[in-house]
């Protein structure tokens, strides 16, 4: 996705922050601090920031739980941008160098299935898709990349 065209001159590449966090308990909370700081930077509403934080938590714990990352790390990139003459957005990319999965084969969850079965889990991707405005999942042998965007 392209950088917003409206960045002031001299700020080329200025709207991207990247970070690496270890695969470790509660590091997802440390990551959300970054999402919040960048959301505040563009004066995004608090509730929208909270939605980005929750989606980010889900993406992180998925990688922690399922990816089996070779490097024991998660690579996060936060981007700020603006549609041509349009709304500003905050984009979060969560990249793991893990085993990958086929997201088209993940069965959608429902609370009734949760009650019937013993498996109450399976809500992460659903929550991410519902809370963010755009979500793109790319996964394969090299790992998984979740790209999610929220408009201001």
């Amino acid at each position, binding site marked *: 996705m392209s950088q917003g065209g409206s960045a002031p001159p001299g700020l080329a590449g200025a709207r991207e922050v990247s970070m690496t966090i270890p695969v470790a308990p509660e590091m997802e909370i440390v990551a959300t601090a970054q999402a919040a700081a960048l959301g505040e930077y563009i004066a995004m509403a608090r509730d929208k920031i909270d939605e980005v934080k929750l989606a980010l*938590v*889900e993406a992180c*714990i998925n990688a922690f739980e399922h990816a089996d990352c070779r490097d024991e790390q998660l690579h996060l990139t936060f981007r700020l941008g603006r549609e041509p003459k349009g709304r500003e957005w905050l984009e979060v990319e969560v990249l793991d160098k893990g085993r990958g999965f086929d997201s088209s084969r993940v069965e959608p969850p429902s*609370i*009734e299935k949760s009650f019937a079965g013993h498996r109450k*889990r399976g*809500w*992460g991707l659903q*929550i991410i898709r519902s*809370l963010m405005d755009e979500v793109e999942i790319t996964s394969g042998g090299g790992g998984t990349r979740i790209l999610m965007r929220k408009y201001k």
Partner: protein
Amino acid sequence: MSEACKVSAERRGDVAILRTDGYINNQGGEEIAREAYAQLESGARALVLNLEKTRIVNSIGISILIEVLEKVMDRKGMLAFCGLTPTIDKTFRIMGLAQYAEIYPTQEDALRGVNPQPA
């Protein structure tokens, strides 16, 4: 870690009020479940979960809340939530929790909801 979830309980007749403070992840969810089951065991009919001091949850934590809900429904009890942030409220609705548990703005509303007859 500062985010670790603390759970405190208060009993009013057969209604138990559980207040959480902090991140509801797997540990937080288990903390809530432990306290909820203790209350059910000792005769509580309704649980009010006040999440006022919780600003973040994850789906592992919520899945444990679904287990609690199931156990309460098995016993023909009631489960009510209050004090949800807009994002946690939205997430509970996405997951369909709101169809089986009531969601109230405040603890007073929740107490009235689980206890319609004058106390």
